[in-house]
């Protein structure tokens, strides 16, 4: 097995108000994998994500990204390696034009001029938004903004793409378009989601987080068809959806 892109060891964290959100999480993601992080509301998923690029500092345990420990000294490089796409694109797109927003990350890491422009257009191309480079983000549709948010992170050429609820608030067509884009990208993905069909469609492997620990880690199909596990952790398949009746998966 190759060295893991993401290696979380015994991670525990309590918020300043005393609420213990993580109780020793172990998680490995290997290069090229697409992994879904599932769990009910309040399971600690977002808290875990904020540790991956050092926004929150571990109470106990360690996080390594491609062998590099997440510590204060490495923060700038860690944040280039771990690209987080937040849930609300309006939080992520804060500059005047799509181009400036996509350039923000790589420019912070020292890319300039021609190389920067190439990187920006390449990232926009990969999400099919190259024609919108000079538009202000707040004039785009929600689905377009989500795609630009993905591009802002792709432009940093991260080793791992972390998406927080990528399918939330998308109409079915935008949801499928985003899935197509994700499949076309050749990057390691960790996807936090409540959208179980989406997890099944895109991620061969799923990890279930409940009450701050990993309670299941396996093939997404096996996780979703384990009725006892699903019931025990407030995971429910949408009405009419049964993984057992799906013949083959796209991609």
């Amino acid at each position, binding site marked *: 097995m190759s060295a893991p892109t993401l290696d979380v060891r015994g991670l525990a964290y309590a918020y300043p108000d005393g609420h213990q959100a993580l109780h020793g999480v172990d998680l490995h993601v290997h290069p090229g994998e697409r992994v879904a992080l599932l769990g009910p509301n309040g399971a600690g998923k977002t808290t875990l994500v*904020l540790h991956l*690029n050092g*926004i929150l500092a571990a109470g106990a345990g360690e996080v390594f990204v491609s062998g590099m420990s997440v510590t204060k000294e490495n923060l*700038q490089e860690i*944040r*280039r390696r*771990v*690209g*987080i796409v*937040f849930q*609300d694109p*309006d*939080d*992520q797109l*804060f*500059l*005047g034009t799509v181009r400036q927003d996509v*350039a*923000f*990350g790589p*420019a*912070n*890491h020292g890319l300039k001029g021609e190389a920067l422009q190439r990187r920006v257009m390449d990232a926009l191309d990969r999400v099919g938004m190259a024609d919108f480079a000079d538009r202000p983000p*707040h*004039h785009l549709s929600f689905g377009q903004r989500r795609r630009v948010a993905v591009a*802002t*992170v792709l432009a*940093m050429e991260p080793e791992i793409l972390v998406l927080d609820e990528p399918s939330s608030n998308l109409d079915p067509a935008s949801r499928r378009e985003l899935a197509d884009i994700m499949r076309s990208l050749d990057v390691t993905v960790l996807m936090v989601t409540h959208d179980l069909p989406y997890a099944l469609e895109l991620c061969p492997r799923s990890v279930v987080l409940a009450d701050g620990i990993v309670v299941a880690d396996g093939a997404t199909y096996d996780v979703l068809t384990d009725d006892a596990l699903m019931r025990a952790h407030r995971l429910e398949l949408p009405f009419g959806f049964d993984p057992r009746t799906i013949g083959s998966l796209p991609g």
Partner: protein
Amino acid sequence: MGAGHGHRLHFPGHSPIHRAEPQHKILVLVGFVLLVVATPREWFAAYLVHLALLGVVVAISRVPVGYLLKRLVVEIPFVVFALLMPFIALGPRIDVLGISVSEAGLLAGWGLLVKGTLGVLASLTLAATTEPADVLRGLERLRMPDLIVQIMGFMIRYLDVVSAELGRMMTAMRSRGCDPRRPRHWPVLGKTLGALFIRSYERGERIHLAMLSRGYTGKLPS
């Protein structure tokens, strides 16, 4: 919710005023406003000259006068105050149209009204002929501190987001039988604005997180 392209105050065009460098326009605006404020309020004729100057600029810019006048409504609170001044000020009183008003108050009210209106009208002309992003660029070239320019940029970016949020909160209030326009419901409106402040504050924190996640270290790349 649907703010169209460009900003609501901007009137697209290709006049010489539109094409002028933003920093020059800002300097002219500031100069003009200082001139208006410095003009003694008894020099009635001078204000005609100011108005004429402004009129010429507006004519060249081809922004319809009605477009600017409609946006003068922001000035209403000052107008109300200016109109009250002749009645509440002290000193010798004179009769105007059979109503006894304070002479000093009348003059002060006139001064406030004319200076305010000219200033707002001139600012509206700048806003109508210059995209917000260009105004920022102009300020940057005039050596406005980077941090202030950044804050103004964020304000422009999120004005629509926050006003859309307020719009949705108002709709939700109306849907539950509360009319924010009626004074009886103003306490609720106050609480709504408080909630909006908290929401905006939290959004600010989320934006900051998203910026840090992309390697922000305190300076926006130019």
